[in-house]
């Protein structure tokens, strides 16, 4: 077949060969990117369902939602937002270095990203611990004397569901980035082969993006 695998890459270090069913390297990368975009679309739709729940109950219980959102820790939320945005930057830098074949820098950028992800989870843990302590919990477990408005337990249901689902995605993202980091440690990436870095970073940007929506929705308005 016409295995015109990116002319010029022959002899470059660690270029994985084009899978047998693809016509060329370009087609293979195009397929991988398109697949990732579609997957990210499904992830956004998954969260969109929760956003619909939020909108519905915010409309039904506006007072309880406004009051409850003031009981979240805005400082910790803001720090976490900054941490995630910075980690998105380092993930983007990893793609930049991968294109230049600087695998060592790719490793560093991803290690920083993963550390920040861990930091995010630690801060989240403290927030959660505080909520558990105050019994600001979903549904029947809600027993916080501070706010006693109808529908307030619904706010905390949605808070825990959406931040919990997001935290799950943070963990998955750490695993994905860890896997790409291992590949970078094996010096696999160069100007023609960096799709894995790109796709891993795209996933991380999604995790960041979802938080960018969750933060104002839960903490600010």
């Amino acid at each position: 077949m016409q295995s015109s695998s990116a002319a010029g890459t022959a002899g470059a270090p660690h270029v994985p060969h084009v899978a047998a069913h693809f016509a060329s390297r370009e087609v293979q990368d195009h397929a991988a990117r398109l697949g990732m975009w579609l997957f990210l679309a499904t992830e956004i739709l998954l969260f969109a369902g929760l956003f619909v729940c939020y909108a519905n109950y915010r409309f039904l219980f506006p007072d309880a939602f406004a009051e409850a959102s003031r009981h979240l820790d805005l400082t910790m939320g803001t720090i976490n937002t900054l941490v995630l945005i910075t980690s998105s930057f380092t993930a983007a830098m990893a793609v930049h270095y991968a294109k230049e074949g600087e695998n060592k820098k790719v490793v560093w950028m991803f290690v920083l990203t993963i550390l920040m992800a861990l930091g995010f989870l630690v801060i989240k843990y403290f927030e959660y611990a505080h909520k558990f302590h105050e019994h600001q919990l979903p549904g029947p477990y809600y027993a916080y004397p501070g706010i006693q408005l109808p529908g307030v337990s619904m706010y905390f249901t949605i808070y825990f569901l959406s931040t919990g689902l997001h935290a799950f995605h943070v963990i998955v993202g750490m695993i994905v980035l860890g896997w790409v980091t291992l590949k970078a440690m094996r010096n696999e990436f160069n100007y023609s082969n960096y799709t894995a870095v790109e796709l891993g970073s795209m996933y991380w940007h999604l995790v960041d993006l979802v938080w960018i929506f969750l933060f104002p929705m839960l903490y600010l308005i």
Partner: protein
Amino acid sequence: MSPSSSIAAEPGAVPAPDEHHEHHPSYLVDGTTVKSWLLTLDHKRIGVMYLIWVLLFFLIGGIYALIVRLELLTPGPTIIDAMTYNRAFTMHGVVMIFLFMIPAIPGAFGNFMLPLMLGAKDVAFPKLNLASLYLLLSGAVIAIWGMINGGMDTGWTFYTPYSTHTTTTVAPILFGAFIIGFSSIATGLNFIVTTHTMRAPGITWFKMPLFVWAMYATACIQVLATPVLGLVLLLVVGENIFHFGIFDPARGGDPVLFQHLFWFYSHPAVYIMVLPSFGVMSEVVATYSRKNIFGYRAVAFSSLGIAFVGFFAWGHHMFVSGQSTFNAGVFAVLTMLVGVFTAIKVFNWVGTVYKGAVDFKTPFAYFCGFLYFTVFGGMTGVAFATASLDVPWHDTYFVVAHFHFIMVGATIMAFMAALHYWFPKMFGKTYHEGWGLVSAALIILGFNATFIPQFLLGNAGMPRRYYEYPERFQTLNVASTAGASLLAFGFIISAIYLVYALVYGQRASANPWHSRGYEWLTASPPPTHNFVGPQPTYTEEPHLYVGPEKSEVPDAV
């Protein structure tokens, strides 16, 4: 009509595969260990495994259906108690929808045919393809485990707040459906990427076979709708275990919100079930009419049209939920638009048959049944979209009969047509044409005998899902049960002669139907990498029949 001789190997056919048989074994014999099947990345083997599993699920769902029909033979208790009856119709729905109708045609025939029709060696992501099969199976195992350990009595729609309070085993079954949803997303994603990136040189978008167009439109729905179902199923599982109250009115939750989220998936899911059928039928009607498909672009675009409009029609499931008259009106009009796109297809199929040289083989018999079910089921659908008519018919047997006609009737016709049409391509064997026609006639008759009485029952006011019913409904219920038995008998005949054909059938030629479809450009069954030697050239449209004569279509290229 001479049953099987007309589709047997013809002299001078299939030169390449037989000569090079040693070097290019068919995908069926290239590796015979169990492991070579279970861990295969070959889309054709994955398709065959899908076929085996969905047939098993069809059998399970069918047995539940017969239990339900037998129970309704008499007005009072017949063979099972009320709770078992509730579980039986729930499991009938869950198994048939999530494990048969949604994965059947894309999983079995889409997997097998899509790469062949695109001149590709495989789907874009072969490992993901295998993973989606195992996701389906693990979801099925979890759901069936739940069925054995208690079962569920909510009906397949899992309506809250009942589903969050019932003591039956809701969580594992919903979690199973959640995993099956992932399988569906993976298949859809794979097909979209395959269609975009794997087309052979010469196959432009408007030279793609119509089955590919239908699979593409289906895949778009699968990718865009299924995540929402995934979320709502997770919410109900969480609700059932922890009682968060998100859909529980006692805690301020909103059960209608559940219905919105559920039908946002489950209404488009109807088109996940019927769009592949439309694709199969476009192939079948062109092949057996020996005519180019009438209005190729209209048929292709109407698939996308149905996929698009299908997303805006979910509200017609909630005409009696207390939504405003304005909402009901909007959803009614949007729902009727689906009828417009379906009508485009139906008229084009009829236009294709018109003055065609019809070869009345088994798949064409199923096409006739399909046309009838689609039109009848579709017309009752338009009637249902009218909010004022929906109100008296709501939750009666009229609904049951309607969605069985359009979803089940059309899908079963297409599934059986696809099974017969592609049987020679997939297994390299021919089946007995006479028995094929007999079984098709029995299935179509049985289907009518089952569901036409249900239209009458519903119109007379018998509610769906009831365990007992007044004496006056008995005659029609007996007729319906008799029809179901006839239907089952038809399927049993099919199973017997198809299995017989697998073992003793004559060897099929590469293109026994003299079809212009791209998938017939290779041997039957195809070699592992789909094509031997140079890739076929694609200079003509896939459905281009220049005249009614068979001889104009070469047996193999």
